[in-house]
């Protein structure tokens, strides 16, 4: 090892005596570890070890007072044999699928408009920023901001009534699955717009010109040229949206008014009841499901090129 590194060192610092060169080459090899150290340590202490703790605790026993170190499978047994779990998973996947489809349609259209139809770079950046800014404000505030809009006496209902389209307020607007999905789309559409826009900006404009010269219609260009080349961005956006929705509990609790359930909410409820081993088992299953989904998406699209 030393023999192979010393010559290259010597060439860059030819005047240095040999001993110094060796010392410096050891230093050079240690430096990356020192630089990556803070990141590695943080992720180790606050991510890896906590997740391993969850896995361990998922096999522990508990009663109404405390939890006991043990190795039991009852937490998983109770979880996987309960029809409530399966119904909740189905509901969560439904939220994820609906949000994914809608954000994908919006994200692709918005990104396509910004990347291919807005001509000046300045306008492109300004409009892009306009989309990004709401993302920096509080998620919970953005959720409650739908209340005056969707409520029984909200803007939408009073508007529809005064337009004569309905004669009674629509009850399903707020505190419903509709409200949950709407809030998800509102919160996470940007996670689709940004990566897809990023992918589209890398597409060589000559390819689009060539396709058009070859007689392709606008729709054909989008379908056969732009869509395949934007796939990595779509994959990254999809991973974000799906994982965020799968783990969510506040949006579901706030927007459904307690009418609907999700896995995240189930875990949060178990935590508030101090049923930590049950919550841990639930969390392990959720993590496995999310990882399977992500791996499946990565098998379809290779996103490593994008980084």
């Amino acid at each position, binding site marked *: 090892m030393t023999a192979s590194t010393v010559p290259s060192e010597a060439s860059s610092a030819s005047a240095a005596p040999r001993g110094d060169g060796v010392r410096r080459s050891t230093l050079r090899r240690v430096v*990356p*570890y020192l*630089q*990556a*150290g*803070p*990141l*590695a340590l*943080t*992720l180790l*202490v*606050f*991510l*890896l*070890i*906590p*997740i391993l703790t*969850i896995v361990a*605790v998922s096999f522990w026993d508990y009663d109404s007072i405390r939890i006991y170190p043990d190795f039991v499978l009852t937490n998983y047994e109770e979880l996987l044999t309960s029809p409530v779990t399966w119904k909740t998973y189905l509901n969560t996947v439904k939220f994820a699928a609906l949000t994914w489809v809608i954000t994908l349609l919006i994200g692709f259209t*918005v990104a396509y*408009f*910004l990347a291919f*139809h807005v*001509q000046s770079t300045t306008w492109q950046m300004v409009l892009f920023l306009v*989309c990004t*800014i709401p993302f*920096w*404000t*509080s*998620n919970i*505030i*953005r959720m*409650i*901001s739908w209340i*005056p*809009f969707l*409520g029984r*006496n909200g*803007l939408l209902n*009073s508007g529809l009534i005064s337009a004569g389209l309905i004669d009674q307020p629509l009850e399903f607007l707020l505190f419903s699955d509709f409200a949950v999905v709407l809030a998800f789309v*509102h919160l996470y*559409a940007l996670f689709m717009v940004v990566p897809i826009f990023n992918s589209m900006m890398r597409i060589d404009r000559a390819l689009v*010109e060539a396709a*058009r010269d070859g007689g392709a219609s606008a729709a054909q260009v989008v379908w056969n040229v732009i869509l395949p080349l934007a796939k990595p961005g779509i994959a990254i956006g999809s991973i*974000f949206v799906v994982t965020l929705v*799968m*783990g*969510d*509990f*506040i949006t579901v609790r*706030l927007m459904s008014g307690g009418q609907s359930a999700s896995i*995240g909410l189930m*875990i*949060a409820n178990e935590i508030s009841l101090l049923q*930590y081993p049950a919550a841990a088992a639930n*969390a392990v299953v*959720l*993590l496995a499901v*999310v*990882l399977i989904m992500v791996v499946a998406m990565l098998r379809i699209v290779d996103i490593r090129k994008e980084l």
Partner: protein
Amino acid sequence: MTGTGTRRGLSFYLLAAFFGLFVLFLYGPIATITILSFQGPEGGLTFPMNGVSLHWFRNLFEQQAVGDFGGSFRRSIALGLTVMVLTVLFSLLAGFAFRRRFLGSGALFYLAVASLIVPSILVSLGIGLLFNILGIEPTWYGSALGAHLTWTLPFGLLIVFAIFNRFNPAYEEAARDLGATPWQTVRHVVLPILLPSLIGVGLFGFTLSYDEFARTLMTAGSFNTLPLEIYGMTTNVTTPVLYALGTLTTLFSFTVIGLFLAGVMILRRRRLRRTGAAA
């Protein structure tokens, strides 16, 4: 030019209309609660407006029954600033490390990506359990700080990767050829070039932490941060004071973004002037 001509056809206007609706969808609700926060004292959670006043803003600061708004706001700011500094520092350092090959770099990269994918509630639960078992009291400046970093560091790292991908190593070589030490190269050549992007990393770190709810839930200990406080309010407050809080925090976020953008612009202009003077 014919290309532009065909693009400005019907599809351009349809797409522009779609984009307009999207922006309306993004901003409409926030604008609504901003207007409604100026309700008169008799006003409720919906339109019509019942007078115009600053009643609910005053209410927010006076009535401590709502909760510890001031304290949680200060804690959130302090936490956000700490997260910001650590995110910039750690992700920049790690970015330098990843430019070379080192043992475990692949594993560390996947760990960082996993940190983005793991649902927030799991991070909260895991850290809460770990501290519980070890008998350490969770605090907003300890365990919550760590929890927030698991969310901000991967973002920071990915941005730093993107920055280094665009970075031209010729500048470093030139500095080295002129006899600069590695530290001088970083201090006088690399950092000034990276500075505007690092400000972006900081903005990411601050706002992600300032708004983070799920990762704070089990890790904040006995003192609330602002998102936890707001969440508490949503379940038991049914007056426009909630909207006043929303208006204030949104205004604060926009101010922070404005400051960051202004900072980037000043840096860019200063650099332009300097290069202009050199030429």
